């Protein structure tokens, strides 16, 4: 245990220093439970995009269903909060609007051309939205919330999306190395 008093202030500030994994993880675990205790609603993010579809005027039955009705618009407010949280985090350590770190993998993987890059991100986004809505949750709803309840469907979903993400990155890395795009 680090007893250095500057350690606490560094939790709030300090440019690119991340919180120790166990501190950030424990805080997220407490927050997820805190939400359950305060509101009796499970943590989740991807369902809010269904509310967004409803609010954008879609008349499809899925978005007119109980799960995405106006009485569940707190899901959208939760996403607005996440946006503000990211803003607060970046303003407090001076990283706001700093260039994204894509790392070796994504830098080599993304198309160079701007239009192609936009199409790439759009495609990625569609896969994320499609897959998480089909599976009924994402990393927060299925993993942080569902696995912590011991929910079997969430454990299976988490295993498959972690497996698929791992395989995707590994195959991409292997292909990029094989073609000499990544060394």
């Amino acid at each position, binding site marked *: 245990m680090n007893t250095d008093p500057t350690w606490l202030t560094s939790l709030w500030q300090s440019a690119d220093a991340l919180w120790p994994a166990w501190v*950030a993880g424990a805080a*997220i675990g407490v927050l997820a439970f805190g939400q359950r205790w305060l509101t*009796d609603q499970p943590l989740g993010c991807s369902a809010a995009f269904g509310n967004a579809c409803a609010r954008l005027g879609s008349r499809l039955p899925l978005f007119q269903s109980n799960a995405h009705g106006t009485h569940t618009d707190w899901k959208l407010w939760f996403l607005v909060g996440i946006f503000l949280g990211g803003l607060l985090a970046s303003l407090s350590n001076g990283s706001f609007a700093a260039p994204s770190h894509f790392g070796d993998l994504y830098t080599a993987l993304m198309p160079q051309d701007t239009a192609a890059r936009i199409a790439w991100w759009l495609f990625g986004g569609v896969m994320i939205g499609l897959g998480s809505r089909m599976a009924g949750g994402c990393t927060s709803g299925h993993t942080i919330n569902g696995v912590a309840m011991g929910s079997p469907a969430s454990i299976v979903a988490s295993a498959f999306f972690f497996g698929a993400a791992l395989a995707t990155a590994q195959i991409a890395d292997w292909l990029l190395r094989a073609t000499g795009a990544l060394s």
Partner: protein
Amino acid sequence: MKNLSKNTRNGLFLLIGTAFGFLLSRAGATDPAMIGKLLLLQNLHLLWVIATAVLVGGVLNLAAKIWHWRSLATGQPLSFPHKPFVRALVPGAILFGIGWGLTGVCPGTAPAMLGEGQWFVAVILVGIVIGTWLVGFVQHAWHRHQQRQRAESVRAS
């Protein structure tokens, strides 16, 4: 949440979301390079974040179940609604995993990344909305197709 007014409830979720977004950012989950290193097993920081979150959340859930802790909003014992085993669960999880693996972004980190001024995520957010809408569209088309088939088989018999 019956006891909460609509505005109180929305404000409460705005606050919880703000804390969640801040934590995702401080955890490094909003950094695509960190996700890439996690998936290539080069840096397991985020794995430990997720594992600790699940462990701490799991212990608290278990304690709440054992001692019947009551929700502040409802006054009733906490509910633990398990997500259902839908037929699209596994294919959906695989598609989501591919999208996550290709971009290093997920539905929870995307709004936080936009808040950090990582503007490219605006494109991904549009994609997530389109992908979500496609599920509603295909589901509706499928149901109508089934209804039509059922109607035809009734007519034939």
